[in-house]
């Protein structure tokens, strides 16, 4: 009996020695899947910035891998499964199109944690996260209306999906808070990333009298046109000031760092749970790039709004707000619920175009 316990002690000691340092040194493998190249200076670039931040922050406790430029669902499913099979315990799939592939792989790997950006389907091991980019668009609307002389902004938009429509409405409400008669002209690029078409759209909008260019597409091309033609513009997803040093007023910056850090910590502490996160300025997921090329007054106004958003005191969609047809949407003081915002498929009052369907 004594001998047995001695052996047991020896075994556990040996295992402890063997397993202890191995556990401490075994880094957490975190995988990322990007829809674009990391060099797009926009959407995927910002995700990769956050990945690099994780590497810096966690040092050798973590190991990260990414697969870029995955545009099609069949390829996405294979790429996600490859990450799961090669020992990644936490996988961020950063584009809407990866939703169903992520869920399919998650079913086959119940022990791996998945984080899908901008989708709406969750599972026990699949969380979703997105940012309230529309908050920044409200601020952009205020800046645009304060600075514009023609009272017309040109909007280069990707597709008429809720994400984009919500941003337009928020921009419009921000602009109307400064100039109730503000107008928006829209060109649909029908692509997230098509520098040629985005540039053409920006040119056409300027020719139609817009003196502010806003974009909800990913390339810096519209900024370069704005720089060339001397009108105001905004960066998309990241600070794009180097593409338009004399034209960029600010930029809507996607900041995934703090969210990614929280999620990695949760996995390390074994507290990770499937959840849905939709954060804005308050959660540090959205911020404005440094202001430039605008007046002090405009900066003051923007800073005030941002401070309220950061404190959670202000919702861009606060009544009274009417729909485009004049019918009432939000009563005085009422704020929009997330369900309506997530499926938003109507314009607010003030738009002259009709929403393509």
């Amino acid at each position, binding site marked *: 009996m004594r001998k047995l316990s001695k052996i047991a002690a020896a075994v556990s000691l040996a295992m402890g020695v063997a397993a202890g340092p191995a556990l401490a040194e075994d880094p957490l493998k975190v995988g990322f899947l990007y829809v674009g190249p990391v060099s797009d200076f926009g959407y995927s670039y910002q995700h990769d910035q956050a990945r690099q931040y994780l590497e810096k922050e966690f040092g050798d406790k973590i190991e990260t891998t990414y*697969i870029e430029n995955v*545009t*099609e669902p069949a390829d996405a499913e294979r*790429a996600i499964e490859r990450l799961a*099979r090669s020992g990644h315990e936490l996988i961020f799939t950063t584009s809407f199109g990866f939703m*169903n592939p992520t869920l399919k792989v998650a079913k086959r790997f119940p022990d791996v944690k998945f984080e899908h950006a901008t989708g709406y389907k969750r599972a026990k091991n699949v969380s979703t996260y997105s940012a309230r980019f529309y908050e920044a668009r409200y601020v952009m609307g205020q800046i645009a209306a304060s600075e514009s002389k023609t009272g017309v902004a040109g909007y280069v938009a990707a597709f008429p999906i809720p994400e984009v429509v919500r941003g337009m409405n928020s921009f419009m409400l921000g602009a109307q808070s400064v100039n109730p008669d503000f107008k928006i002209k829209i060109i649909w690029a029908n692509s997230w990333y098509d520098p040629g078409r985005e540039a053409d759209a920006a040119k056409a909008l300027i020719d139609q009298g817009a003196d502010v260019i806003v974009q909800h597409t990913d390339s810096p091309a519209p900024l370069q046109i704005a720089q060339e033609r001397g009108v105001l513009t905004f960066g998309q997803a990241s600070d794009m000031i180097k593409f338009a040093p004399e034209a960029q007023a600010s930029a809507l910056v996607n900041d995934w760092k703090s969210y990614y850090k929280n999620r990695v910590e949760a996995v390390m502490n074994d507290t990770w749970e499937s959840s849905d996160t939709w954060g804005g300025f308050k959660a540090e997921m959205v911020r404005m790039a440094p202001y430039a090329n605008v007046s002090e007054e405009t900066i003051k106004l923007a800073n005030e709004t941002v401070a309220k958003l950061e404190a959670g005191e202000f919702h861009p969609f606060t009544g009274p707000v009417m729909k485009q047809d004049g019918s009432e949407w939000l009563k005085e003081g009422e704020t929009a619920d997330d369900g309506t915002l997530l499926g938003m498929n109507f314009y607010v009052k003030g738009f002259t175009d009709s929403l393509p369907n």
Partner: protein
Amino acid sequence: MRLVLEKRAEHSRLMTVVSPLLAIGLSLIAGSIMFVMIGVNPAEAIYAFFIEPLTSTWSLEELVVKSAPLVLIAVGLSVCFLSNNWNIGAEGQFTMGAIFGSIIPVLFHGFTGPLALPAMIIMGALGGMFWASIPAFLKTRFGTNEILTSLMLVYIAQYILDYLVRGPWRDPDGFNFPESRLYEADHTMWMLGDGRMHFGAIFALVAVIAVWFMLTKTIKGFEIKVMGQTPRAGQFAGFSRKGIVWFSFLISGAFAGIAGIVEVSGTIGQLTPVISPGYGFTAIIVAFLGRLNPIGILFAGLLLGLSYIGGEAAQVTLGMTDKTTSVFQGMLLFFVLACDTLILYKVRLVKPQPTAGGAHERV
């Protein structure tokens, strides 16, 4: 001294065998130089690219999933190219096949049972044939250049798909996001094995065997080749010029259409705005890489599939960027096609003549 390419009287049988090996050797050397330049151990990189994907059942199955549509489309295209019909629009026929085949799971999703899937496949083939019949009609009726018409129709097909998934075919429960509903189990391709491999691989194999048989053993195969090489002689033999245009376009359209519906119902499981990473265009490369021979196309499709799967593996295991792997794929294709020159030509070293002719030649 200079090097001269001299046309051979006949195909070199030796070079037919040696050229692919030479090409692989040259890509390995050039690739290794590139890998060293970016600080990656070339042995590890080449292992990740070509060997690792072959070491697990999972990635072998994925290789089949990736290669099957390429092979199926390329085999159809080989009939076109052999008969001198330049169908560049397989990508559009693929998309149309996916759209037509999806009419059942999207609009009539209540129609289930064992007949649903065969009906979808037939609809897919018809969709591809319909789209391919447009350039065939324009060519036979008005003499329009089929390269342009078939290529332009690719974009039209893609816009139709885009319109459908963002408009009338959008998933009613999908928060307005641009995707169709997910297909029912009865509308999903029969699976082979426990991974993602599905029945589409069988279609590709059957197509390879059927077209090989047709080209080598039947009068139709003879007709295709004669009409491709010397249409005048073919007409004297009683072959119809218009007939062969229609035949080759319809068969390649049908194959591309089947590949489309099989991809959507087998690999993706729904319609999305993008359903192909350019299979229809890559298949053109596969067809020529396989020297327009169905058996060759089978191997070419697998090689190209391997380079994609391997490229992705290298991204994960070695942290390479997507650009490096595409450059390496490009090198591989370049050397394979360049070395094929040696089958038709031989390289000769020409010594300069001692007369003034040498100087004269420079002018």
